[in-house]
């Protein structure tokens, strides 16, 4: 492969590499927002890439060959498990009995997407040696902290397909559609972001254009996912995770030694500021870590791709599956984030002054062609495994929540063949929509902000609904709407935060800190410990927060959403006469396809499952 040479490295001025960007700008980017924004930032880099540095360039034939090998291989794998007549429940959750290896690999592959790799390196380049930790660790904890709740959800709804479907059985259509709607928007945005990342990578390393790259990726993912749905997604995830993680194992040490480390740690130390060279950097924690901690439970609850795997894995394997995926995601994303740290020591100027270009720039500048091919496969694997999961998530929501529960009228009345048609049609339409949005490069930041807030507002009502029989549909929907209504003026600063209003927002935010800490503890240790942890966390946060936290609009708005939905939901439920019988959920939610129901053993005869539910 030729290396395309331009004006030489370093011709683009550094945007103040060693300076910390303004706290407000960085704290204003929640995880999901920044993920998607990062994918979009790459769109116009091709010309700059060619003019400012030497990059390996693939020929059109090479790229087509790589894509045919990658997507052809995954298609063959999915075709081998394909059935002439797929089962509707299998299409959504693969029969609720997937083993550890496949499910842990699938959860890992789904949670690692191209933008998370770029964002971790950006964090390393911006905040120094602790940057990747403050990015990857909290993202990994999203997987870890959801599994105790997942075990409870699975115990009350062992054969469910989506979290929203269980909400329908628990509360009714309004709560269900609120959760399902946020899931759909989140998955569509994720799908679009992954297509953008693919288009950018292909346009950067080959003669193909950005839009051509998007179409290649979208067609490849749809090709192997369409027929068998979730079953194809999880099985191909295993192959993709092997390719991805295998590439990480080779590429990180290769870049490390080729670029002159460990010697460069001494020669490049002067390139780091005091904060960047401090492992316990307060800048990194306040600007990168803290906003992500607030997002841990929100993204886990708001993501149907996680819920789908919670329902698909064998019930007794939930814990090892999610712990392994936590370590796999954390090690991969933090490891790739080290590219940013190495670039900082080397004094590399990012192409176009955009730190998101660090990874492709380092790989394509320093590594031999064979390792650039490996990198290409790693990124294609990362974005494809997440995109196919998004398609499977979207199809399951349309099949179970929209058609199954609301149109057909429940599992006894739904036609499994029609469900499959709905699922496949959803995949085609979602792919077309995501390709269209990605090609148009729509500005979706406000939509992202709204979805993130909705997820935060949903956390307490959703979790409480699985444990507390007093929570009513009215309390659920009212608390979420009220939280959103108070989130918006704080987030977009529609009201002046001077004086008493600012202090009031700070006090409510401190309650939000207590809610988040309490909920995290509740999953693992139960109610009493959670109450103590919540109160202690709020008391510790108060002196550091009251009086200044309202300056950080996004962080305080997220905390307000948590606090308001929690307090409102609790206040409306605590005196409720209702005492919901959780056994009803398992009767209302189950297999839609009789073929699936007949092929399974009766779960009540399985002593391990009965013990778990007890």
């Amino acid at each position, binding site marked *: 492969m030729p290396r395309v040479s331009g004006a030489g490295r370093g011709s683009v001025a550094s945007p103040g590499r060693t300076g910390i960007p303004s706290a407000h700008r960085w704290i204003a980017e929640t995880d999901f927002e920044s993920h998607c924004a990062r994918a979009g930032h790459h769109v116009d880099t091709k010309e700059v890439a060619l003019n400012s540095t030497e990059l390996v360039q693939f020929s059109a034939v090479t790229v087509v060959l790589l894509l045919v090998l990658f997507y052809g291989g995954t298609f063959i794998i999915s075709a081998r498990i394909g059935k002439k007549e797929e089962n509707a429940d299998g299409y959504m959750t693969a029969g609720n009995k997937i083993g550890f290896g496949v499910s842990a*690999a699938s959860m890992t592959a789904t949670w690692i997407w191209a933008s998370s790799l770029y964002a971790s390196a950006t964090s390393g380049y911006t905040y120094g040696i602790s940057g990747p930790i403050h990015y990857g660790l909290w993202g990994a904890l999203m997987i870890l902290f959801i599994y105790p709740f997942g075990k409870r959800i699975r115990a009350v709804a062992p054969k469910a397909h989506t979290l929203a479907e269980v909400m329908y059985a628990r509360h009714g259509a309004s709560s269900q559609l609120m959760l399902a709607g946020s899931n759909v928007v989140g998955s569509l945005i994720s799908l679009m972001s992954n297509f953008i990342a693919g288009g950018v990578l292909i346009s950067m390393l080959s003669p193909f254009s950005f839009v051509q790259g998007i179409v290649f990726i979208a067609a490849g993912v749809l090709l192997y996912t369409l027929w068998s749905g979730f079953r194809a997604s999880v099985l191909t995830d295993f192959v993709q995770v092997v390719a991805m993680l295998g590439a990480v194992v080779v590429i990180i040490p290769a870049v490390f030694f080729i670029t002159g480390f460990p010697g460069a740690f001494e020669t490049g130390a002067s390139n780091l500021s005091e904060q960047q060279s401090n492992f316990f950097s307060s800048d990194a924690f306040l600007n990168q870590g803290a906003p992500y901690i607030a997002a841990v439970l929100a993204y886990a609850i708001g993501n149907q791709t996680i819920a789908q795997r919670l329902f698909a894995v064998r019930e007794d394997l939930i814990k090892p599956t999610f712990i392994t995926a936590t370590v*796999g995601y954390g090690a991969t994303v933090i490891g790739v984030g080290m590219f940013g740290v190495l670039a900082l020591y080397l004094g590399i100027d990012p192409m176009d002054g955009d730190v998101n270009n660090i990874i492709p720039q380092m790989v394509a500048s320093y590594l031999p062609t064979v390792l650039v091919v490996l990198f290409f496969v790693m990124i294609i694997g990362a974005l494809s495994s997440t995109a196919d999961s998004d398609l499977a998530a979207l199809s399951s929501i349309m099949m179970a929540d929209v058609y199954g529960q609301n149109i057909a009228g429940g599992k006894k009345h739904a036609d499994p063949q029609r469900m499959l048609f709905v699922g496949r049609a959803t995949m085609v339409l979602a792919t077309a929509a995501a390709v269209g949005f990605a090609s148009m490069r729509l500005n979706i930041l406000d939509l992202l902000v709204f979805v993130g807030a909705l997820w935060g507002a949903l956390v307490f009502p959703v979790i409480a609904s699985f444990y507390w029989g007093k929570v009513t549909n009215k309390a659920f929907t009212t608390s979420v709407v009220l939280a959103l209504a108070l989130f918006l003026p704080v987030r977009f600063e529609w009201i002046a935060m001077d004086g008493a209003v600012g202090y009031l927002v700070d006090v409510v935010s401190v309650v939000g800190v207590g809610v988040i800490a309490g909920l995290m503890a509740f999953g693992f240790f139960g109610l009493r410990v959670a109450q103590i942890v919540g109160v202690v966390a709020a008391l510790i946060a108060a002196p550091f927060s009251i009086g200044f936290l309202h300056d950080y609009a996004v962080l305080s708005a997220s905390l307000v959403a948590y606090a308001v939905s929690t307090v409102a939901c609790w206040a409306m439920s605590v005196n409720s006469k209702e005492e919901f019988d959780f056994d009803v959920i398992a009767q209302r939610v189950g297999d839609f396809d009789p073929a699936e129901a007949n092929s399974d053993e009766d779960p009540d005869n399985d002593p391990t499952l009965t013990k778990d539910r007890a």
Partner: protein
Amino acid sequence: MSTVALTIYVLIWPLLVALVLLVLGRGFAKEWLESRRNGEDLV
């Protein structure tokens, strides 16, 4: 941090990834063999 500590800090992640890869591979192999033995689908 010393050069040795920084080197370990950077290179420990790919080692951890390799370990996860082994765990996943072992789990997958066991399930695949079991599904073949029982004549069932893997997923």
